[in-house]
């Protein structure tokens, strides 16, 4: 595999290798001089059709710490049906000699097209496409879970461990992913990656926010957060962002996915009461940006269990690992990620 498009394409060994590499990258980030010479002379283009300052900065930081030249190509505001076509943009980047293209796009499948349409030779990294996938988010989530919980799962102490042994996966981990699964590329990416790594995933959402067809996914599905917290007792709980427009629906109304924010929070929010029911070692995650008071309470977001800020930092290490593995040509194990 020359690209990172979907967590469905990643084998267990490939995933673990990325996490191991990310751990090495993370170790370098504690140094005073954080920059590595690895990708000197290589060009990474951040092609963002959707506004996402957080993800773009994370990729930009990762590429720069590896000494790559970074070009930010913001096509935000140009809808899929207006402006320059994706094809012409791709041909332009090809002519400019891009080695990797990090693509964020509102249309599901756009990175897949970039990688496979024959327009571009560069490695393509999917930085989030429509409702499809956001693989580096899932990888950084898995990295965060491994750091906090792998040692505990192996019978050790429940504390962050920067020396998790290479080759460690997430076998036996119980994860609850709560919220708007239907529209979430984060959920799709996580379900597949976590299953590949041996974790047990339970999706929790109102039925309106689960896709038809979810029954074929490698996970359990629940409509009841309290029952899941009680019966599954997750080691990690991941709260998904609920977008404001989901509350009103489209057109003349009636298409809202839930009655109102209060009801959503009552049934699916991580409030202080639910926070208190978590196991002592359990961690609280959120891909950001958060709607405090809606899907997650301030108490949960700011609690010692919250690893939300750490997720952001781990994002840089994971994206360094991905860019390194895609561009360094070091494919000694025969897998190219």
């Amino acid at each position: 595999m020359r690209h990172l498009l979907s967590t469905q394409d990643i084998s267990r060994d490939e995933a673990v290798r990325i996490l191991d590499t990310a751990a090495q990258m993370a170790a370098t980030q504690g140094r005073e001089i954080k920059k590595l010479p690895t990708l000197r002379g290589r060009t990474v283009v951040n092609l963002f059709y959707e506004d996402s300052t957080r993800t773009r900065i994370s990729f930009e930081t990762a590429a720069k710490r590896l000494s790559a030249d970074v070009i930010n190509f913001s096509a935000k505001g140009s809808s899929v049906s207006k402006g320059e076509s994706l094809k012409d943009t791709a041909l332009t980047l090809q002519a400019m000699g891009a080695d990797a293209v990090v693509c964020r796009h509102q249309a599901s499948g756009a990175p897949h097209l970039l990688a496979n349409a024959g327009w571009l030779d560069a490695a393509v990294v999917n930085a989030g496409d429509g409702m499809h996938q956001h693989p580096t988010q899932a990888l950084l989530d898995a990295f965060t879970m491994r750091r906090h919980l792998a040692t505990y799962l192996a019978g050790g102490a429940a504390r962050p461990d920067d020396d998790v042994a290479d080759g460690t996966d997430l076998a036996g981990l119980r994860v609850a992913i709560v919220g708007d699964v239907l529209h979430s590329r984060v959920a799709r990416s996580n379900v597949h990656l976590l299953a590949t790594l041996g974790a047990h995933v339970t999706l929790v959402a109102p039925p309106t926010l689960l896709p038809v067809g979810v029954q074929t996914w490698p996970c359990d599905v629940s409509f009841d957060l309290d029952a899941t917290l009680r019966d599954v007792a997750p080691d990690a709980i991941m709260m998904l962002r609920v977008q404001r427009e989901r509350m009103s629906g489209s057109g003349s109304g009636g298409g809202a996915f839930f009655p109102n924010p209060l009801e959503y929070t009552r049934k699916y929010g991580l409030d202080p009461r639910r926070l208190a029911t978590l196991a002592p070692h359990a961690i609280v995650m959120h891909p950001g940006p958060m709607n405090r008071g809606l899907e997650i309470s301030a108490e949960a977001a700011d609690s010692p269990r919250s690893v939300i800020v750490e997720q952001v930092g781990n994002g840089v290490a994971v994206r360094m690992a991905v860019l390194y593995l895609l561009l360094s040509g070091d494919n000694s194990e025969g897998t190219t990620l």
Partner: protein
Amino acid sequence: MSTTTILRGARPTGGDPVDLVLRDGVIAEILDEGTASHEGAAVVDATGLVALPGLVDLHTHLREPGREDAETIASGTRAAAAGGFTAVHAMANTTPVADTAGVVEQVWRIGRDAGWVDVHPVGAVSVGLDGTQLAELGAMADSAARVRVFSDDGKCVHDPILMRRALEYVKAFDGVVAQHAQEPRLTEGAQMNEGVVSAEIGLTGWPAVAEEAIIARDVLLAEHVGSRLHVCHLSTAGSVDLVRWAKKRGVDVTAEVTPHHLLLTDDLARDYDPTFKVNPPLRTAEDVEAVRAGLADGTIDIVATDHAPHTREDKDCEWAAAAFGMTGLETALSVVQATMVDTGRMNWADVARVLSAAPARIGRIDSGDRAQGRPLAVGEPANVVLVDPAATRVVDGAEQATASTNTPFRGRELPGRVVATFLRGRATVLDGSPVEVTA
């Protein structure tokens, strides 16, 4: 028109070989194989070829007027002839919309002058396909184009009272409303069949129920007002059940299925290649089986192409930005052979029924001096297609006669080849190639 053509050794609807003698635009004689001879006659060696009545498409998008960059009436009807058709119904969603006598007469006249097939314009049900006000259905019916099929295809006549009025109104001239069954609220932003694949690849779903709910409503409306209803491009197992139920009740409903819904499934969306983006969307393998069964048992009356040419730029892009639709005129017969004949579910007489006789009857073009869909019998119009069922070919959009290349069968090997097409005795296709009309 005194030329005589002998189709030597042809097998009418797959039967025993005979010599078909075409003269003065009609089938003049049907003689024992090898016995026909006529001074100055053109002889076509049809040994081993199946002769079918000229095919009739009830659902073609010719794009003219308005999108001549994707297809023109001339290029589209040339493609139709290459596919074995002698008549097509040109859908109304052009620019301007075919919602007045003026537009339908223009389409009809350009089609007549092109000379490849008979072009029967479909009239819009509502002004501008807006779904609010009835178009001048009577004026279109009375025009030179003699419109009998009315459709807002591309859009659903979703307002139940407008649908009721249209169904009632067209009774005055024995018309039919051809419904594009798609509940609009259930399909806002829809990109592909809603199911396992859409859940996985993150494209907004187009649920089967959005089609079935409209069909259920419309068959009940048609029953209530005693009107004739035609269901366009039926695509789901549930739709087949509904039409079967309605026919059992005696509702005057007919239904069509497209070649692509007989063969292709929503798995093809996984690569985000918009060639496979179509409305209604490709469904599941269970749906494909159901529409095949429905076509075989007569629940589905006809195969219609929904030939929908699009420019390269409208398909060479992100799935969500791409246009809905696929070409089909030049592959329809092959797909029907592959899915229905070669599988033993239908014979060639059935093919003649679903691709010629029944669509002509639904469109009310099966009588008069330009009758279509008639049996291969002495005295009938010499609309004949010769098919080599033993031939195979690999589909290549660039080699087709249509002006667009968005064929979903690209790279697939399909059985059957149209060798020759005759429109009232005149060859429009010979040796598999269109015969250009010389002035």
